[in-house]
């Protein structure tokens, strides 16, 4: 298992290097002169030119790219923010906890709601509950999250006055954003859980469990769910990526000063180092999350785990002997 994790970590390295190249290139191609942006429209051309030279903006693409990679890889240096002149790494790490908190809250909500609704729906297939739940889930999948956030503000903040509409100054500020994000992605998880469980329930080994005289609840929870979870885990991992992307929008809607909103604000200010660093950090978290999903796979599915341990070889030899 440890070898497997090590291998997966090694595989992440070229992918992340590739991400750095892509993000850097995108930002390199972005129009607009950061030096001009920093000094303002009234600054003399000579001062702008001087700043460009200091920032290294006059170097060729490859020189800049290599310098960037070198700084990131060896010194965790993401450069200086053009807007605040502070190191980008400090700026984004300062805002990252809020994004992580939002993502974690939403994933928790979506997993709890999505999986439990999916189980009820699958075990009571074709019932009224199932029909209503699947329709709501389909609506949830179809709703733009940022619009759902806006409508939640209209209903719960403006009209009912139950919860604050924007900011992040206390726990009550997190309710609307995390519910919006969480419930909207629970729809996907619910649909996946339902269809996966329906598939598993038809399998022969479920019949074997019933033939032992096991009661239906244990059959579902102990036998069916563990098998059904395997594809659901994949979806949860993918949702986490979507949540990191979606948090950009939700943070904008609810004015939460997290990393996502910081990236958007920096885009409009042409603060390229911040955008690069921010996207990189989010891509890194996404990769780590995918790694966790893969490890979780190993725990759920012994067939995967045994590919990386020796017990499989032993098992084979034993089989050969027994026959």
């Amino acid at each position, binding site marked *: 298992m440890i070898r497997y994790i090590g291998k997966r970590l090694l595989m992440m390295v*070229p*992918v*992340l290097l*590739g*991400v750095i190249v*892509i*993000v850097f290139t*995108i*930002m390199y*191609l*972005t*129009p607009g002169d950061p030096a001009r942006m920093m000094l303002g429209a009234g600054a003399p051309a000579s001062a702008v030119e001087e700043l460009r030279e200091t920032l290294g903006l006059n170097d060729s693409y490859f020189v800049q790219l290599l310098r960037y990679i070198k700084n990131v890889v060896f010194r965790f240096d993401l450069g200086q923010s053009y807007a605040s002149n502070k190191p980008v790494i400090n700026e984004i790490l300062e805002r990252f906890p809020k994004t992580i908190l939002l993502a974690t809250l939403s994933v928790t909500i979506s997993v709890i709601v999505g999986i439990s609704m999916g189980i009820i729906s699958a075990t009571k*297939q074709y019932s009224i509950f199932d029909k209503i739940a699947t329709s709501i889930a*389909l*609506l949830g*999948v*179809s*709703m*733009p999250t*940022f*619009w759902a956030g*806006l*409508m939640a*503000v*209209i209903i719960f903040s*403006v009209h009912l006055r139950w919860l604050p509409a924007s900011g992040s100054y206390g726990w009550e500020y997190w309710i609307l954003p995390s519910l919006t994000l969480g419930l909207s992605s629970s729809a996907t998880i619910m649909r996946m859980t339902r*269809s996966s469980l*329906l*598939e598993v329930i038809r399998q022969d080994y479920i019949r074997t469990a019933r033939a032992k005289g096991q009661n239906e609840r244990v059959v579902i929870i102990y036998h069916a769910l563990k098998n059904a979870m395997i594809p659901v885990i994949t979806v949860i991992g993918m949702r986490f*990526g*979507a949540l*990191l*992307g*979606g948090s*950009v*929008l939700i943070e*904008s809607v609810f004015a939460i000063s997290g990393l996502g909103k910081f*990236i*958007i604000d920096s*885009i*409009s200010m042409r603060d390229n180092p911040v*955008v690069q660093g921010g*996207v990189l950090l*989010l*891509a890194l978290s*996404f*990769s780590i999350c995918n790694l966790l999903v893969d490890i979780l796979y190993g725990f759920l599915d012994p067939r995967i785990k045994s590919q990386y341990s020796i017990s499989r070889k032993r098992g084979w030899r034993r089989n050969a002997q027994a026959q």
Partner: protein
Amino acid sequence: MLKRNKKTKKGFWHDAWYRLRKNKSAMFALFILGLLVICAIFADYIAPYPYSLQDYNHTFEFPSRKHLLGTDNFGRDILSRIIHGSRISLLVGFSSITTAIIFGGLLGAVSGFYGGKVDNALMRAMDILMAIPGMLLAISLAAALKPGLTNLVIAIAIADIPGYARVVRAAVLTIKEQEYIEASQCIGASDGRIIFKHILPNCLAPIIVQATLGMAGAILSASALSFLGLGIQPPTPEWGSMLSSARQYIRSYWHMTAFPGLAIMITIFALNILGDGLRDALDPRLKN
């Protein structure tokens, strides 16, 4: 051999269409999408007012008989703007998905067909693109390109390419093992001919399903980017940018926010239902 293959294929599509027709919700979705397309094409005739007509005596009006969905901060009729907005949403959705399918499909087909080093290199490249959450990639691309319709399409398409490449690659890998591919290799057909004549047509079913669901995603992304000010800019009527301008009036005028979003939701809802229906119709084994 070829003739018989064609014949069974016609039967396949015929059966699929028959199954789809029996699916009431899919037919309803198709009906809604048809209405949307009609709205988009004949927007000038259907919309009660020109979409840019400003009426400073009637700004921020709530829905009434005169303005069914109310008016906005410039006194423009929201219904008319939504009807015109369907043009851009459908256009962006359709063209970005088509672009993504063409490039992604080609990459996937080449990757799956040749395998080996080509496959490895292309798939690692796709892994890199997929390591960046799709929305974030689209946002960065949209920021790098100038705002506008074409660039919006490009940004969304690039973010979608890896998904299609994978679907097509998987389909190609399955089809490649079939005997008729071996047969055409035996009679000396060129690789290009095999890919275009045999493999791609047989990947069509999963592509159609993915494209329908993907178009929903593309319309969502387009509206999200416009909402962030990175896509279609005001005053062009687009659902996302309408929401963007409605935001500052959210405390007093809910109708400005509610209706454009509802339009997005209905469109995507219909595409999702149709996508589910198509999947059931094209691959009946998958049905629960």
